[in-house]
């Protein structure tokens, strides 16, 4: 691997990420999959980095799940999106940041479509006015929340309490980065580092002391694919894609997988259990899986947030081996305690994977 070659590509794909003043929209599913990720993002940007990040309870889904499942036509999705953008304008913002990769891809696709087909743009603006009496607007800058954490990666490193380093040996942890397909595969120029060698997560890993693992199936989709997962008879296909990735990364013995998509971390986390149960195979050491985390969770750990406050107890694969390596203290007693010590109840302990 010639690192300079990658650097050259990274320098070709740099997008402008404004420093401050964003209108933030959440993901439909991330709050239940990774309950503290979005809260961590807001806490880091607002309270640690002192940025102006605005959110409103009036925003909705982007329509992506319905659109990608063929439940609604493109025009409907575009009108939903136009309403989101209109809210941004209404509250006086022009930079738009979204938590979800599916949304990010759909926003890119929509803005690109409006650029190509101004008539359609007019029609959507009309739909928006008729249905919501809101003024049509397009963001000046559209970014994904991981773009922002990427932009602030060195500031976060400056505040770091822990690093992606084995605190006993001083060696960098081996970290797999997995990018949501819709981040840059559709529009390579919209992603930091492009589509073939995205830098958005790799940059965070480097800034926080880890070593990026580039394994053969790095570019491969996690297999979520909406229809592939939603329909049970297709679920094997979804599982097979994740399996292929794990088989490919196995020789590198990764310590952690970091992702920027709602679906990927969920499936890469949960399918490890299904693979362990049905194939009897685990990819970490001593019957453990490989912890899969969102970039906000990793940023939170680096900044010294309590692992249980970050919601890491909701992951299938226990984060403990990673916490031990990074030297992060945690109280096992507190793992399944919610806010104010409320007992969340313990999941059944599995024999096949930890």
């Amino acid at each position, binding site marked *: 691997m010639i690192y300079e070659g990658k650097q*050259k590509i990274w320098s070709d794909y740099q997008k402008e990420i404004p420093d401050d003043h964003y209108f933030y929209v959440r993901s439909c599913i991330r709050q239940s999959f990774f309950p503290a990720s979005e809260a961590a993002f807001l806490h880091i940007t607002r309270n640690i980095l002192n940025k102006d990040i605005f959110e409103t309870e009036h925003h909705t889904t982007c329509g992506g799940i319905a659109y990608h499942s063929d439940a609604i036509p493109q025009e409907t999705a575009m009108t939903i999106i136009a309403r989101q953008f209109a809210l941004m304008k209404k509250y006086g913002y022009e930079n738009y940041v979204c938590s979800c990769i599916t949304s990010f891809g759909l926003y890119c696709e929509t803005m690109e479509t409006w650029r190509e087909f101004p008539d359609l743009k007019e029609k959507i603006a009309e739909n928006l006015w008729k249905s919501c009496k809101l003024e049509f607007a397009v963001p000046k800058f559209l970014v994904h929340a991981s773009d922002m954490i990427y932009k602030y990666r060195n500031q976060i490193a400056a505040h770091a309490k822990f690093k992606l380093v084995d605190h006993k040996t001083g060696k960098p942890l081996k970290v797999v980065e997995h990018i949501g397909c819709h981040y840059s595969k559709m529009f390579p120029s919209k992603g930091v580092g492009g589509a073939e060698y995205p830098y958005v997560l790799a940059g965070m890993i480097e800034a926080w002391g880890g070593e990026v693992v580039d394994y053969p*199936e790095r*570019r491969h989709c996690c297999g979520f694919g909406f229809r592939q997962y939603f329909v049970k008879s297709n679920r094997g296909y979804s599982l097979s894609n994740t399996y292929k990735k794990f088989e490919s990364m196995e020789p590198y013995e990764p310590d952690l997988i970091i992702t920027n998509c709602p679906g990927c971390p969920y499936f890469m986390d949960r399918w490890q259990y299904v693979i362990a149960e049905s194939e009897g195979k685990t990819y970490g050491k001593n019957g453990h899986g490989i912890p899969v985390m969102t970039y906000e969770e990793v940023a939170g750990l680096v900044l010294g947030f309590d692992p249980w406050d970050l919601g890491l107890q909701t992951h299938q694969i226990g984060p403990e081996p990673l916490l031990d390596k990074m030297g992060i203290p945690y109280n096992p007693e507190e793992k399944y305690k919610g806010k104010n010590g409320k007992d969340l109840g313990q999941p059944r302990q599995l024999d096949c994977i930890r």
Partner: protein
Amino acid sequence: MKKNVLIIGGGPAGMEAAHQINKLGHNVILIEKEHDLGGHLAKWDRLFPTGRNAREVLDTLKENMKGINCFTDTEVKSINILKESYNVILSNGITILADAVLISSGFDLFDAHKKEEYGYGIYDHVITNADLEKYYKTHNDERIKNPKRIGFVHCVGSRDEKVGNIACSKVCCATAVKQACEIKEEFKDAEVICFYMDLRMFGRGYEDLYLKAQKEYGIRFIRGRVSEVSENIDKSLQIKAEDTLSSKPMKVSLDLLVLMAGMRPSKSGNDIGKMLELSTMEDGFFNTKDDFNNLQQSKRPGVFYAGVATGPKTLPETLNEARSAALEIHNYLAETL
């Protein structure tokens, strides 16, 4: 009085034209931006289909150049278009009043970095056709270490709208098959695979080369474009392609991958084109005055073309064009006396 003919580009086309125009009794000035004459030919080791030593062909061209005015390390700075001539200012400070200008600016090799998915300049064992020729000349390339399995990807930067070139570069198929045979000679135990979309073995002796590659060298031809290259933990390469004849995706590990970079219009040729306001076709190469009857003339009187400046060509075709251009220039000068 002798007429001045300025030849821009000292590759095979420019050299052969210089020789012929000089023999026809005109005053030739040849300029070349590189330090040495010969263009890509000087960087090549052997030529298809026969494996003829490129050096010998180049030496003949050089021998014929003796006594001809030649400026290397020299580029055109500007051109004033006069009524019946061209006032050309060179980067070495010399000004030439040319009665005719021959553009033999050739091609640039497609920059294989642009096919990001192939990992040229990123993965340790991905090289180009030009790198391989250099290896054959020097036997010095760290990326080539006793490979056991070697792949060739045809059409890199050719027939590819994604990189902005839908045209076929014409010579890469024959070059790939030639290089595949040569590498098999070098590494006798290696398995060699060519990934092609169509095999365009159109010239005399090319089909024989293909047959030889199959029969004598046992080279496997897989009809399918490589979609993606990545690196295994042992630094070997993982290749994905479809074996389109089986209609199945295919995966294979390789120790060396050779990208057959195609031909793009030369950048310095384009600059000359802008100075002379010459038109190009959609592929970026220059437009000839007529597709059939006037292949060497541009639409501007007194400006001529030879070789790849007007689209991909083989070396014999290029040399023939040079001879043809010499004759056209000779006739033009006679008519405008």
